């Protein structure tokens, strides 16, 4: 059995990795921390066929040729539903000659959720995620130049209004470097709301928040108020303004934008797929 398992030791990375915490544990099954921490490295493709299989416990596994995929931590790679399994399998299937782990965002997120390299529980993730609220991108406004002030007001205010109404909370925005004073009640509301998420969904949500640097935009995306493109645009508003003014540089601006879009989309998809319970409701046929 064990021989059949593929363990991807070196290059696969985790979505959110705190190095100091993870290192001690990782070193005992890896021996080579350096190889592990480089998400940018590639590896030769060693399989042809990618397929999925459902295990006895109902979880889905990924098979590369006839071997089972494992996480970097050595666990069997399992995902909760078929949609996720197919999306991950497609990532593996899409690799050409070398495995580009930095482009396999869903696999990375699954690895993070399975291995939990930072050893955190739900409460700690929620606390970590909500810390971003204090320094939320959409809450910090500039006073100058006037066009930028106008732009932030027009683009960010509607989302802020939306979230305040949707969750019945007060957030507000600020021109001060210290940011707005977020009432404790707001944080409690969000904490309570996030309490209903499972560990996988929280892992994905935290990833989205850290990508967009905004709790407000992340909620907008997860609650399907915004599309990925809209959320990324709003998150990069200042950069977009600079591009409009000074011109676009493909190897920096577009490169960053597509990467951010891919990561954000993966995170949102991860949350949606891991929190959904698929039910098929058929229409009753009436004669």
């Amino acid at each position, binding site marked *: 059995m064990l021989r059949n398992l593929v363990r991807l030791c070196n290059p696969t990375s985790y979505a959110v990795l705190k190095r100091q915490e993870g290192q001690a544990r990782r070193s005992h099954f890896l021996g080579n921390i350096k190889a592990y921490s480089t998400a940018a490295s590639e590896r030769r493709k060693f399989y042809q066929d*990618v*397929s*999925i299989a459902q295990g006895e416990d109902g979880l889905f596994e990924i098979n590369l040729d006839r071997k089972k995929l494992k996480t970097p931590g050595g666990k069997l790679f399992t995902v909760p539903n*078929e*949609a996720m399994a*197919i*999306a991950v*399998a*497609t990532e593996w*299937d*899409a690799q050409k000659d070398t495995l*580009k782990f930095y*482009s396999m*965002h*869903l696999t990375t997120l699954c690895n993070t959720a399975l291995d939990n390299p930072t050893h955190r529980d739900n409460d700690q993730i929620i606390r970590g995620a909500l810390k971003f609220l204090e320094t939320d991108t959409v809450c910090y406004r500039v006073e100058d130049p006037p066009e930028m002030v106008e732009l932030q007001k027009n683009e960010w205010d509607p989302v802020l209004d939306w979230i305040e109404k949707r969750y019945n909370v007060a957030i507000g925005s600020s021109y001060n470097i210290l940011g707005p004073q977020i009432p404790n009640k707001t944080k409690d509301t969000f904490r309570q709301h996030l309490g209903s998420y499972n560990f996988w969904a929280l892992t994905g949500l935290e990833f989205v928040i850290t990508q967009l640097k905004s709790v407000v935009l992340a909620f907008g995306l997860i609650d*399907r*108020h*915004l*599309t*990925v*493109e*809209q959320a990324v645009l709003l998150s990069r508003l200042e950069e977009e303004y600079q591009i409009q003014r000074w011109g676009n540089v*493909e*190897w920096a601006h*577009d*490169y960053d934008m*597509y*990467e951010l*879009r*891919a990561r954000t*989309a*993966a995170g*949102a*998809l991860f949350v*949606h*797929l891991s929190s*959904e319970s698929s039910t*098929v*409701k058929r229409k009753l046929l009436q004669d």
Partner: protein
Amino acid sequence: MAALTTPLRVCRGILKEIRAVKGQEYKQTLAYNYVLDQFRKNQVSSERYCRAQEEALHTSHSYLCLLTSTRLHLALHKVYHGKGERKPEEVAGLVGLRLPTQPGGKGWEK
């Protein structure tokens, strides 16, 4: 509600992306069949408002965005960052400078 394109466009977009990575045999992939199946299942005829369908559409839209952005990102990565680090000579060349070729300047004194 977020502005979404029609399900048909998203569906075709996803299939196009699968084709872009898999080439001609894209119809044999897991994803191709699954995506088509899901879109067929979620077709609604006369319902007034269907929350599940809206959700499925948003999710599929995210997936399309993931596939497209990953492809474009990799393309840019290949062009601009795929060759690893540049050599000092190349870096100097980028800003129109040349490295000294004759030893004897600063750093060579005995």
